[in-house]
């Protein structure tokens, strides 16, 4: 199979059908189909416990596939795991590098294990440490590394043999905004070098920034798939968050919103709070003008992009249930 290289460019980087993973009674991954094209960044979006990490680990041969089948560049994941491991680099949520070795030792070891000669492994380690701005820390034990440095080293470790496919499991969770931006730049550079990237994230804006296509995962199932724009239009491109002044007429305000924007405002738990989904941020002004003309006074107002929660609510009819389950611990 590996020798058959005809029409390779048509072969999907990842092609999975009906993936199922059971943990006892729980179907952590419950029949997911996934097709990632070569050279794209594909985002898997979902809350904690949705099954994102489990799915990625199945595709990376770290978990067995209970049902369904998966291929990476045409190679069967269940049947030829050793081949799969030569085709993809995986960077997990928790840095999988050796705490007690130095950064260079880590990269050298991973390179050597994958068959590089000692000299090449050293050169590769030096190149990657330079690329990721870690050369000053090359000979320090990882115990002394910050979280951001660990993540960067972890990504570097996935790139030693330049695999054509990279899995990134929540690559920026827990990083500060500046480090997060650097990670995004790095990911974009990888793709411009010809890599295919499958990443998971809890952040809609991250998927929006990076991914060409997104699959939304909920409770082990794929509930939506499309471009970031597709997803956002399903909830409006932004939300007007209002808080009416005490004593203001809520019913009147609702009526105005309906007339002006044509959408139904969502009342929030705070007294006088309401969220108005908007087609574009510009129509926020129309709603506010309507309020002033009717004499409805406002305590506070802001315009926000839709959150993952709102996308979820719109697609699944329930919220993300943040904090009620935890799959990512396993």
């Amino acid at each position: 199979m590996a020798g058959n290289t005809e029409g390779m460019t048509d072969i999907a980087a990842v092609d999975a059908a009906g993936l199922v993973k059971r943990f006892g009674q729980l179907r952590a991954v419950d029949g997911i189909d996934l097709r990632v094209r070569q050279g794209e960044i594909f985002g898997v979006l979902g809350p904690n416990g949705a099954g994102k990490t489990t799915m990625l680990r199945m595709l990376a041969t770290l978990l067995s596939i209970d049902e369904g089948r998966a291929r990476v560049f045409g190679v069967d994941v269940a049947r030829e795991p050793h081949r799969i491991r030569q085709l993809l680099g995986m960077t997990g949520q928790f840095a999988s590098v050796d705490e007690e070795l130095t950064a260079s030792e880590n990269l050298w070891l991973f390179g050597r294990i994958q068959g590089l000669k000692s000299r090449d492994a050293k050169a590769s380690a030096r190149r990657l440490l330079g690329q990721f701005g870690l050369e000053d820390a090359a000979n320090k034990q990882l115990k002394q590394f910050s979280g951001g440095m660990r993540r960067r080293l972890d990504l570097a470790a996935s790139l030693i043999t330049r695999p054509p496919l990279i899995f990134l499991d929540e690559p920026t969770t827990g990083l500060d905004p500046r480090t997060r931006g650097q990670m995004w730049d790095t990911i974009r550079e990888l793709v411009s070098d010809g890599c295919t990237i499958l990443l998971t994230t809890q952040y809609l804006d991250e998927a929006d920034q990076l991914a060409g296509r997104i699959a939304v995962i909920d409770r082990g199932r794929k509930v939506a798939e499309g471009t970031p724009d597709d997803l956002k239009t399903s909830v409006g491109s932004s939300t007007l968050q209002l808080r009416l002044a005490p004593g203001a007429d809520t019913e009147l305000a609702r009526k105005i919103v309906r007339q002006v924007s044509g959408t139904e405002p969502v009342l929030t738990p705070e007294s006088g709070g309401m969220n108005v989904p908007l087609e574009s941020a510009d129509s926020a002004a129309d709603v506010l003008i309507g309020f002033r003309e009717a004499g409805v006074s406002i305590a506070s107002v802001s315009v926000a992009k839709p959150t993952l929660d709102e996308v979820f609510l719109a697609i699944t009819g329930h919220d993300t249930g943040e904090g009620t389950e935890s799959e990512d611990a396993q």
Partner: protein
Amino acid sequence: MSTMIADPAVTVAATRPRASIADTISQTLLMAWRSLKKMRRNPEQFFDVTIQPLLFTAMFAYVFGGAISGHVQAYLPLMIPGIVAQTVLTTSMATGVQLREDMEKGVFDRFKSLPMARIAALAGPMVADFVRYLIAGGLTFVTGVLIGYRPGGGVLGVLGAILLAIITGWSLAWIFTFFGTVASNARMVQGLSMMILFPLTFLSNAFVAVTTMPGWLQAFVKVNPVSFLVSAARDLANNGAVTAEVGWTLVACLVVIVIFAPLSVWGYRRHL
């Protein structure tokens, strides 16, 4: 980034279906290198292999020597090979506990996701443990000599006994490695291993003559691989004689490896 990724078609065509023997050996040695690095950076890992030989040799000699052999000097030729066996076994137990602790670390996710022979991750640390067995075995004899043991087998006999003990420790370590791969945490490995370790060392001829035990117990003691090791080590160290017991020890080692090495790999894979 400055370098382009090769065409996936080329990469796919270049993949190998499984790790070759040469890959497996070099990956095992790399994992051993990693363990040695870690040992050097955590000298407290040598605590058990240095303190135990010193303490146990002296303690057993002075506490039991008079009761068992009349006086301490007379007990030493019987006891020292027994302590060597016991120390090496305790050391091999630590292999399983450490493997379990190590496997819980994030870096094992990386090892599992690399195209690496599964057995290399298990065998590597065991190869590094040769250093620990050597220290444990050597120190026991040194302590023995310090308190008056004069091995009749000379330097070669003692070296032979140490070598045999190292081989046995390494082989039995596969039992504890297996526990390490299937137990849910390091404490469970420790508990399970103790349950194996105590009967193996004490229900043997390591510290007393077998003839003093009841018949049913003698039956077990005589087939206990530790008894073979202790007898063989005594013959080597005290008389410089290579007896059939050496052969039986090696056979017992082989049996343990043949059973527990595949079981360990199975246990390790099961986590995937």
